[in-house]
């Protein structure tokens, strides 16, 4: 095939391009992924039944704010990582702030208690469930986000994969929070952060395979 012929073909009857197409696709994938994650927390695992009693709403809010802040920052960075040659750097470092915040709060809350209580505060009764649930719930949002990013043109596949994992993991954590009754800051700092980071690492590993174009 002559390159001139290819150019003629590509430029014949060229369609106008919707400038919001990419953003819309990724946003939609995240929205569907969010619905799946919240649905899993509420209906598959079952929403927490003690909501409304002393302090539970506060902890639920902390978990949701923590997860959704990370999700927002990660999504913003992902939109940039999905475009080639963006001059504006992503905000991946900013995504570390919620983690640092929750670890700081957890440290304060541990410091106020005697060492004997630490084990209960860190492990709760649900650590294993949390460790399994968040990565498993994250699978569907991750697949949706990866599909959307594949329609874009990421040039750093590891980074785009990691950010996709971070978005999926934090969405999943928000969904799991609706079910989780472990109300302690150290628990959130350890297990929510840990599983979200796990999802990010999985995304970074899978990115180069899944996002190639």
């Amino acid at each position, binding site marked *: 095939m002559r390159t001139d012929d290819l150019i003629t073909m590509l*430029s014949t009857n060229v369609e106008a391009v919707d400038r919001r197409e990419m953003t819309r696709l990724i946003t939609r994938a995240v929205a569907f992924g969010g619905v799946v994650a919240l649905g899993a927390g509420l209906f598959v695992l079952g929403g927490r039944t003690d909501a409304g009693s002393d302090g539970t709403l506060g902890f639920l809010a902390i978990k949701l704010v923590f997860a959704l802040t990370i999700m927002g920052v990660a999504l913003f960075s992902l939109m940039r990582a999905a475009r*080639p040659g963006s001059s504006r750097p992503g905000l991946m470092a900013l995504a570390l702030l919620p983690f640092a915040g929750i670890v700081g709060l957890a440290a304060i809350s541990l410091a106020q208690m005697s060492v004997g209580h630490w084990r209960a505060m860190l492990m709760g009764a649900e650590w294993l469930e949390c460790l399994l649930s968040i990565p498993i719930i994250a699978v569907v949002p991750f697949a949706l986000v990866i599909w959307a990013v594949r329609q874009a043109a990421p040039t750093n596949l590891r980074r785009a994969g990691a950010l996709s994992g971070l978005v999926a993991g934090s969405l999943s954590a928000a969904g799991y929070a609706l079910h989780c009754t472990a109300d302690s800051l150290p628990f959130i700092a350890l297990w929510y952060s840990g599983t979200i980071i796990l999802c990010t690492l999985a995304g970074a590993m899978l990115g180069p395979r899944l996002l190639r174009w």
Partner: protein
Amino acid sequence: MAVMMTSEQELKGLMTAGLDGDGAAYRMLLERLSTHLRSYYRGRLARAGRGPAEAEDLLQEALLAIHTRRHTYDRAELFTPWLHAIARYKLIDHLRRTNVTRRSLPIEDADEQELTSHLDQGGVESSVDLGRLMARLPVKMRRAIQDVKLDGLSIAEAARRSGMTESAVKINIHRGLKAMAAAIRPEDKR
């Protein structure tokens, strides 16, 4: 002169017009880009011991990628970094697929000098056969591309002739070109 003609501003203007559906501007853009990219790929592939025919394959792959991913260009950004990122990504991906050791991989950034130097060989052929590429497409995609992109029928005419809706014709063209862009890549030998 060369610098003037290939300035960021001019290429960006052509790109933006193309994104708005201006075929003539878009054609001019692709012609300019093919000249730049041809010399870029020839230079880079020569360092890896590859010939100009392979550079033409890679150039066509890059042009298809630029076309099918043009919606990822953000008009608030400069155009050339977007172009360079795609050109470089496609080079690295090509070298990886065709099994080149990491050491012989030229990964420095595409510098301005190489991308703007001129090398006029519009009629160069790649090893890709358009007919064979088309034959691998599903019927609807092949038909939409044949009618609109090769025979030059309008979307409306093509829709009438094939009995598809206009948006179905557009979607089939889009998917067909993406399938071609994927099929044109060399097989992964790793």
